[in-house]
């Protein structure tokens, strides 16, 4: 797999039984369209102490990719690099490497971070609807782009809420506050708000960690539906969630990408000892 770090590739070729499987996968990966390419990326919040170390991976179109790993392993940091949310933190930045989304280096000076974020939406750990009406929450992204025509907004709000599976629950009270909804509904409202801007990629940073099991199930079902239209990258603490929703899983440990492969493979037959220890619950 070309997406691996080179030393891992070497390791794999050394194993005789593993030789056949990767070559088969190689062709499968090539058939997929890559939307995010992370190339030897290192990242530091404070110059000198890298929290991401030489990460390389490809994320495919129309797939759900899960980032797993123990707390502080850098999975959220990498996610926030993908839409440059880390720009908000002074002095933080990539110390090496390149992230290309849709073929463009997103840290290039010519790239407008505002435009980037319109293409790469984000759903946060703590659901954060604005204290506005449900309608205005979904319309927010379009309004800041200067769209004010009611018919356009109405249509976008309806289709986004439908896509987020929230329409039937809220269609009679679009004017009531978004904060009046239950936790799970608020998170779906946030997803609808993100969808309304029509991004290509949706980043989800532990979207279910503040929700009860039933709401979690609903959101997980929603994620599997959404991948038909969007590429989704999800950070999760919950390994079962990763197995349920994702196509491919990346395991991070101490800022390094230990292994990335198809989710079924990661959880049944990981190639790395560290991955196996983590998924079998021996630590983490």
């Amino acid at each position: 797999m070309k997406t691996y770090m080179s030393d891992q590739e070497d390791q794999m070729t050394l194993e005789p039984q593993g030789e056949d499987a990767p070559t088969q996968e190689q062709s499968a990966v090539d058939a997929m369209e890559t939307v995010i390419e992370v190339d030897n990326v290192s990242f530091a919040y404070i110059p000198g102490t890298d929290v991401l170390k030489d990460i390389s991976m490809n994320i495919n179109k129309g797939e759900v990719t899960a980032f797993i790993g123990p707390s502080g392993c850098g999975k959220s940091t990498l996610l926030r690099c993908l839409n440059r949310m880390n720009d908000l933190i002074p002095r933080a930045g990539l110390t090496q490497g390149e992230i290309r989304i849709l073929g463009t280096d997103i840290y290039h000076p010519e790239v407008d971070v505002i435009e980037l974020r319109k293409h790469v939406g984000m759903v946060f750990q703590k659901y954060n609807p604005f204290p506005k009406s449900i309608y205005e929450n979904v319309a927010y992204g379009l309004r800041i782009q200067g769209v004010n025509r009611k018919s356009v907004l109405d249509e976008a709000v309806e289709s986004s809420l439908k896509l987020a599976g929230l329409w039937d629950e809220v269609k009679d009270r679009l004017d009531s506050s978004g904060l009046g909804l239950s936790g799970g509904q608020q998170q779906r409202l946030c997803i609808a708000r993100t969808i309304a801007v029509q991004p290509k990629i949706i980043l989800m940073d532990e979207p279910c960690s503040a929700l009860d099991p039933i709401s979690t199930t609903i959101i997980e079902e929603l994620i599997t539906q959404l991948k038909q239209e969007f590429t989704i990258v999800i950070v999760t603490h919950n390994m079962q969630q990763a197995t349920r929703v994702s196509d491919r899983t990346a395991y991070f440990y101490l800022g390094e990408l230990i292994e990335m492969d198809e989710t079924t493979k990661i959880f049944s037959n990981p190639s790395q000892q560290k991955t196996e220890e983590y998924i079998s619950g021996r630590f983490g």
Partner: protein
Amino acid sequence: MHDIAKDQLVKKGQNPFASKAVKLKRRDRAISFGLGAATYFILACTLYIFADIAFKGIPVVLKSEAPFVNFEFFTKSPETLMTFETEGGETYKMNFSEYSQFKRDHPDVNIVEEHSHAYSGGGIFGPLVGTALLTIICITVALSVGLATAIFLNEYATKGRFMDSIRLAIMNLAGVPSIVFGLFGLMFFCLFIPVVTSEPLERSFLAIPLGGGSYFSFEGWGTCMLAGGFTLAVMILPVVIAACEESLKAIPMGFREASLALGATKWQTISKAVLPYAFPGMLTASILGITRVAGETAPIMFTAALAHKDELPWQAANSIGGFFSQSVQALPYHIYTVAARIPQSEYTKPMQYGSVFVFMVLVMTFAALSIFLRIRYRKKLKW
């Protein structure tokens, strides 16, 4: 089950929980009594002051017959009160304007004993207007500058030692005595700040000709409400900045992140996802600021206030600029004048207590309003 037999058991010394540390217990009681006494003492003092002002002030402001309110007190400006006794033994008490009229109407009356009590007649219309204008100017200036500073400090500035020292400097301003602000206002706003004028005053520090007969002259605004309002604004800026910053900090980071992640610019985020939710907090804080500003005497005594002025600002001015360059009377300064700078007598009391009472009610109303608004918005905006 509580019966006598059980009581007996306890009394016989079989109660393992019987109190042993009698001394400790007594000390405990003494301390709680002492703490309570201090609290009630302060409460009693406050109540006494309020009650005294209310008892002596209410008869000035209200009347026993319809329309129950002494409108004269609110619609007339302060003037000299005349008291005199005629030969016939009758005593009179009237405002100076009425007194001249009286003498003209009754030329034959011989006045035996006559006293004048400065500022004790008329009402407090002039000071009320002056205080209102000063407060409006002050709040306008303080809120716009303070809000801008708070947004910059909280949203734009990179955190670091330089910003910390700026913040520290601003907060230190809050500890400066108000009389110092008064002197600063006199030196800066009254005597120094540059104005564009066709005839520079003699005291001008520097007059730069702009051509066409006009000059850019460092001569200040003179003693006027603009200078007073700005001086007050500088004085409450630290409070306003701190309050605005607190309100901004109270807005969850999640709102900013969500907005930015949707492709909003920084200013869009601040103006659409932060400020609308921070305004209630800023509003209540600035109303509290109003009550403080309205009560300040020291910063305005050199910069804006006069003890006596016959004309109201709009009567004396013939242009908008002229309006703002009028000096005014102000309620706190008026109270200071009638309480400390005129000979005291029984005739000066009504003006003193009436003014203080009105002022107290005004301040309390604003304070109550700010509390009411805060409670209301807290209920409305929850996240």
